[in-house]
């Protein structure tokens, strides 16, 4: 109990003093995860939409695979990315291992199936509603996808936010491919893991509160941005 209070106090102290390390680590956490969410959304949202609209032979198989990939253990993703990026691996020449880029790559692999799968479900429902109208109006496939993405944008935003939530709290994969190097690849989750290991529970907890605060803040900001839009009342 004491430690929680201490952690809260310490968190307040770190934040109020604008602790340089804390700010650096927090910004890196945000940068890595927001970049990963952005890339995963660019891939996952249209993919989910496309899977909802397009009928093709292996569609069910692709969707099942996607859903299975959603449950991919991050540690395994980290391991695979590690092997691929390590100096003897196929992408070793790029020297990406233990860089934020490697962490972003791992997170993209973890988040894309999640975002694609959630958006697929949302768009599939919307497509069921719109189907007859869009067919009757002779829309092209591209127009259908554009319409569904636009009219389903709130659900898609939720998908992206779910991705953010999963990414910002993720530790297994980025620990492996990032290496938790001070001033290079250390982020909030890996720092928490490290401080806990060293027995610095108050500091670890403080970092934990900052992490939660960040996650909540990003959610609130994005939601309020989308709500100010007039047609967003759906």
């Amino acid at each position, binding site marked *: 109990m004491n430690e929680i209070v201490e952690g809260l106090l310490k968190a307040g102290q770190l934040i109020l003093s604008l602790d340089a390390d804390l700010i650096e680590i927090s910004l890196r956490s945000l940068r890595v995860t927001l970049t990963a969410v952005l890339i995963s959304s660019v891939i996952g949202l249209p993919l989910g939409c496309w899977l909802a609209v397009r009928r093709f032979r292996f569609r069910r198989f692709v969707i099942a695979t996607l859903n299975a990939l959603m449950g991919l253990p991050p540690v395994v993703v980290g391991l695979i990315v590690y092997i691929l990026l390590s100096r003897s691996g196929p992408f070793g020449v790029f020297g990406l291992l233990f860089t934020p880029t490697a962490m972003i790559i791992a997170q993209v692999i973890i988040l894309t199936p999640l975002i694609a799968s959630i958006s697929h479900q949302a768009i599939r429902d919307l497509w069921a*509603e719109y189907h007859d*109208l869009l*067919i*009757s*109006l*002779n829309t092209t496939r591209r127009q259908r996808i554009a319409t569904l993405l636009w009219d389903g944008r709130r659900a898609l935003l939720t998908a992206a936010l779910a991705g953010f939530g999963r990414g910002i709290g993720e530790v297994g994969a980025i620990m492996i491919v990032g290496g938790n190097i001070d001033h290079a690849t250390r982020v909030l989750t890996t720092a928490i893991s490290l401080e806990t290991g060293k027995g610095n529970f108050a500091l670890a907890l403080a970092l934990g509160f900052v992490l939660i605060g960040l996650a909540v803040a990003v959610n609130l900001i994005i939601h309020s941005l989308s709500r100010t839009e007039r*047609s967003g009342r759906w």
Partner: protein
Amino acid sequence: MVDLPILPLTVTDAVVRRRGKVLVGPISAELETDGLTIVMGPNGAGKTTLLRLLHGMERVSKGQLTWRVPEPAARAAQAFVFQTPILMRRSALDNVAYPLLVHGVAKTEARARAAGWLEKVGLADSGSKPAHVLSGGERQKMALARALIREPQIVFLDEPCANLDGRATREFEDLLAETRAEGTRIVMATHDIGQARRLAEDVWFIHHGRIHEAAPAEAFFATPQTPEARAFIQGDIVE
């Protein structure tokens, strides 16, 4: 829109099957350039399927539809109003403007024309409302405006008043009469005999997926030729 007349439409021995079962057909019929045809029949008779067939939304497993012009052009000059209005998650105005937008009209012009159509159907004040807050009657009027905005030569309506109360039905019928007066060909399904009597110029009576009778409205109501049609007009239950 398409300037060349797409009517008449000739349907020859068209059959719609699903999972091996014949839903509608074989149908042979002709839609002339002018008129208001009511497709009448009990629930499950195949009215919806027939309208979708005519509109090109059902694949025919046999037979064919022949418009006066080739298919893509013919399709572009048709519109469909569904039994349950499809509400896009947009304002009423943007719902009505949508068909113009997907056919290359600039946004401001599309919106201006949509506003004109909303006014025409009596929804001038509802343009900025999200479509889902409209009442049942308003929704269907919005759907009608959306169907008419590209000035189709023919509009198919599938029991548009099935879920409306008396007043909303009358208002909708008035709009239909206006649409008809402006020269748009109308084909409408209904199982409401009163509505059929009020609007029909000719009637297709359909039962078990086949057209049992196709006749001018007066003749149909005065002297129905089949026992099923006679029973249906009298308000008996037709199975």
